[in-house]
């Protein structure tokens, strides 16, 4: 089960890197926008890894809190970055 978790994390990692690269190609992004998105993705992956391990060890409370704290802050960071830094660039480009 643990190996399966790491395998899934690997896929998610590759998808995240590809998604960020794609975004950087199609939209003109400042370096800190990319860094912020990368940090958000890292936090989400970290939270998933932590939660997976916690559920495997049978401490569900740790898993739930990891999802809230790490994944939650990752999602918030990515959402804010998208809303304030990526979306304006996108609309600028489509004008």
């Amino acid at each position, binding site marked *: 089960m643990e190996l399966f978790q790491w395998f899934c994390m690997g896929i998610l990692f590759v998808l995240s890197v590809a998604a960020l690269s794609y975004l950087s190609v*199609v939209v003109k992004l*400042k370096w*800190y926008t990319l860094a912020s998105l*990368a940090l958000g993705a890292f936090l989400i992956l970290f939270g998933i890894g932590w939660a997976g*391990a916690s559920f495997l060890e049978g401490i569900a409370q740790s898993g739930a809190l990891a999802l809230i704290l790490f994944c939650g802050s990752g999602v918030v960071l990515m959402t804010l970055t998208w809303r304030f830094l990526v979306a304006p660039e996108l609309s600028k480009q489509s004008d």
Partner: protein
Amino acid sequence: MSNEHDDTKAGDANDQLEPAGGGDRREVDALGLDNPARRKFLTRTAVGGGAALAGLAAGYGAIEYSVQGRPSKNYPEIDEAIFKPKDQRDVVLTFANSKALNEKHPERNEQYNRLQKKEFDFVAGFRDMYAKPWDNNKPGYTQMDRALQLAGWHPLGVAGSRKSANLQPNTPLHSWDQSDVEEEQYKFDDKQAASDAIKSAARVFGAVKCGIARQDKRWDYDPLYDLETNQELSWEEDFPFKPKSVIVMLTPQDYDCVATAPAWTADGTYGAGYTQMGIQADQMAKFLRAMGYHAVSAGNDLGSSVPYAIMAGLGEGARNGTLIAPLVGPRIRICKVYTDFDFVEYDQPHTWGITDFCLSCGKCAEACPADAIPLPSDKNGGYGFEPSYEFSDEPGYTWNNHHGIKKFYSDAKKCYNFWVENGGGCGACIASCTFNEPDFWHHKFILGITPASPKPLHALMAQMHPAFGYGHTNDPAKAEKFWKTGEGMRVNSSMKNNIGTSNKS
């Protein structure tokens, strides 16, 4: 430095999304990228992914490096003015098991009862402990829990070494008899090979960690005391040889069983741990004697186990009085083998920032049902060369502590008193410890970043431990959960459930 990716020509890609006039249409793929943009995408994916992987690998390497620990220059800190060798008769477990010592020092029991407002009988304690009736409606205190408790300790009793837990020297498993020492001595090529061989053997005998320290008078009980005959024993005249090295081995205890503390259930794994100590120490001693060297094994007897384990580089001394071994925490038992074999690479004390962490943590003290462990808010945080717990300035009250060593001092008399009231060994300070974790990567990560993390963060980390669902004690649900953890044991696909180590051989 530019704030933009200068090579990012977003327009390049964007242009492709719109039909270019004049019939100069470039081909785009399913992602809407033409050839140059696709190349850029693939390059960035490879470079970005590679950089991220390199970062992760560096982080992993740093954590792996950190959990090896750093050599500690500070251990031991001794105040020579007050330090003297520890008389075995002044250890609670020996005192409580000797009618003769109780008759010699009635003032100890009297003072304890007067100050603590108790009617406790030290010498009757162990007899009363297991006589407490079970209650099948109380999880953790049922007949089945009592049975686990008795079964855990049983082999040690059968072997005649049950009292080694109370520091009785020279019991059958830890015999001083050297009549089977081989005449021919096996010679190792070099010291490292000898150390490696001893540690390989230790793993076969069931040790989860093993280190080798020089024999050190400061940690040996002196004089030793035979509880059966009420006789003092001398290292020079009674011990069968002059020891030079002490091999220290750690025996793991079951995570889910310890988690039930202070219920009787937990005593099952403590008893099983003591039994394993007896067996593996005996095996190691025999291994050395069969190679032609003198060796005597020991459980709690002969010397103080925690400082020897620290000297052997296995962990650090903690607030709860135990050794905290990285990746296993305090969930271990310590056994030792004294030998005259000294052609070995000795281990050195190491630090992982654990003692430092204890200064701001105190979760064990909060969990202790006997209030035997000092809190960080107590005088000196309970850390110093002498005890500072309640009544420690009453003359003679700290008779059981080994003064003059910088460490956390707890009141073992109150601890023992609670065991008797509880009807079994407690260990809530082990179960609640911030370093008592199962074997998963995120705990290794936390251990790895501990030495580098600033002190104020330690208190926060200690608070987060219970918030994340770890370390709760006195919880009947834990006993109920424990009795279901056998599910899946036919296959047992992980092995983490019964060892709890880092999976390193």
